[in-house]
């Protein structure tokens, strides 16, 4: 292994770039691009309130990363920072968002505001206020725990408010568990699990990949064309297929022309 795996990583990036140059991006096709634009507009119009839950408790960081990436993509070009509202206990359990690590998900230091609140009621009060404020590119709400009945109630209350104000809010839920299936009445809802990312080989053991997820879309039938409820999609920082189809979202890297060294897998 080279020091820090740097040359291996560069080789891996070169291979990735060569593959893209040889095959071309899916969005190069004009027809697809138009379709993606239309889908994006549709998604933005209809789906202001998202729910993301980890498949298991240990997939919490993966779900948080997916939520942050979705927030950065949904809020791109909207102005204002991303607001992360978290219950104190959730931060103790899963860790505090780390500013130097936000860049990998397309979020700069100045584009991030964190609210750490002691009570769940405060979290939802702040979320409601933030939705009405129309000041944020996107809002991520992370309660420490949430009963299914409460989740439905909040979704019913906050989804119309988000649609009315044009805000993009993401409820980052704890895992539902086998006895409480993930069935909140939100059209855009995802169950996220960590997935081994494409990774460069180096010596005896390969280097870890970058962010990669296995996403199960649990939305109601017909709310997103081409996607069946329960369908599972593999997403990572080097792929666009699922996001461009489901959310019409490009990925953070390349959006701001930033150095790909720490952004692309």
């Amino acid at each position, binding site marked *: 292994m080279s020091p820090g795996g740097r040359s291996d990583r560069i080789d891996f990036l070169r291979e990735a770039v060569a593959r893209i140059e040889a095959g071309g991006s899916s969005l190069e096709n004009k027809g697809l691009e138009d379709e993606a634009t239309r889908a994006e507009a549709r998604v933005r119009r209809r789906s202001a309130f998202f729910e993301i839950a980890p498949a298991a408790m240990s997939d919490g960081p*993966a779900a948080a990363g997916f939520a942050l990436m979705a927030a950065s993509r949904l809020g791109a070009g909207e102005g204002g920072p991303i607001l992360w509202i978290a219950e104190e206990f959730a931060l103790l359990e899963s860790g505090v968002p*780390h500013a130097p*690590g936000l860049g990998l998900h397309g979020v700069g230091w100045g584009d991030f505001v964190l609210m750490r609140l002691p009570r769940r009621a405060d979290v939802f009060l702040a979320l409601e206020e933030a939705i009405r404020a129309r000041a944020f590119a996107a809002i991520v709400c992370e309660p420490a725990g949430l009963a299914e009945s409460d989740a439905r109630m909040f979704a019913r209350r906050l989804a119309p408010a988000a649609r009315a104000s044009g805000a993009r809010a993401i409820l980052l839920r704890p895992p539902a568990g086998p006895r409480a299936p993930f069935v909140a009445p939100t059209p855009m809802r995802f169950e996220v699990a960590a997935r*081994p990312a494409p990774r460069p080989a180096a010596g005896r053991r390969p280097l870890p990949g970058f962010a990669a997820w296995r996403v199960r879309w649990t939305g109601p039938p017909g709310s997103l064309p081409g996607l069946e409820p329960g369908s599972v999609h593999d997403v990572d920082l080097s792929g666009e297929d699922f996001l461009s189809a489901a959310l019409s979202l490009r990925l953070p890297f390349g959006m701001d022309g930033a150095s790909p060294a720490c952004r692309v897998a």
Partner: protein
Amino acid sequence: MLDVAGAAHLFGGEAALVALVEEKLARHGARTGLADTPEAAWALARYGPDLPRERILPAGDAKALARAMANLPVAALRIELEAARALSQTGLKCIGDIVHRPRAPIVARFGAQVFARLDAMMGLAKSPISPRFEAPAYVAERRFAEGILAREQIESTIASLARDLCDMLARHDEGARSLAVILFRVDGVVRRIDCAASRPLREPSAIARLFREKMEALSRDEGGLDVGYGFDLVRLAVMQAEKFTPGQSGFKLSNLAGPGSANDSRGFHRVGRADDALADFLDRMSARFGAHRVLRFWPQDSHMPEAAALAMPASRGAPPQPPPEPEGRGLRPLRLFEKPEPIETIAEVPDGPPLRFRWRRAMHEVVAIEGPERIAPQWWKSAAPSLTRDYFRVEDSNGRRFWLYREGLYGAQSALQVNGPRWFVQGLFA
């Protein structure tokens, strides 16, 4: 009275600080005393030895404090003059004379104040220092013939005072950054409520809204204001004012580069509204939940992961751009534990990277690893010794990614690592 706890080293130590204060105030004939309790410092300054260095007592040394106070006259207890004179006439001239005497007869004859002061002087009873607040820049107040009790009345009074205050601010072309409402109760109790704004405020409704949020928070956390028999004086003060430039709120540098930019007045207007909405939201939430709960990360000049970003109140504004990443620095995790969690590891060789590790009672099989990235302790910042850390980015068989570190080095002899290096998980990647 100055509380210099933790600040004396900035002036070269306590002796240097005392010398500096005496030098600056020499023409006023000032004498200083430095001790663990306000009463002892007061007594030393007035009745202590002539040499300044003898009026500085060592911190945390109760015996030295008792020795130094024993020779001072009873008047140094800051008791009433008659009581001090009466004590002297009975032969109790020094503090040392009364320390070990039975308390009951002295209390019966000279009052409870003597031993209350003595206990405060010796650090046996609390004696807080009442801070002197800065004089406000602008003040508006309203008096009432009878005390007002209802929260609605108090809020409407604040809104009315905010209008008066904003007129004053407008005359001086300033806006309020820091405000305080001071409520004077009929029975003499004073209650103060502070609020801060992230931009100069000159809008009465915004000021009233801030205090409404604060009152809401008070009623939630403390059961509301203790109104007693009511407040007969409500004062709204601007503690800190800044130049107010109306055009400034509609200006944003990023607007110059993008669509709807410099030439697009609508773009300016829209961005200005968004900025105002953001500032308004941050101010209101800071007032309601406390500034320490609405945060932005500011880059710090430190390579220690936990110190690389400092969470500051968002009302201080947007943080500066972080410095460019140093060459060869590894990826940083999305989430960082405030307290790294210990793990058990199994490695092929003692100083090798882990093959598997146990964290929160679950075993993780390592299938990919990057590292080590060595981070040495900041010996130039802290006198306390600490250990070198070797960081590893690790992926387990389920695709979960962790940021582990090994604290300490194999073979190194140190009192900090008696049982060899230890492993921790400090962060989690998406």
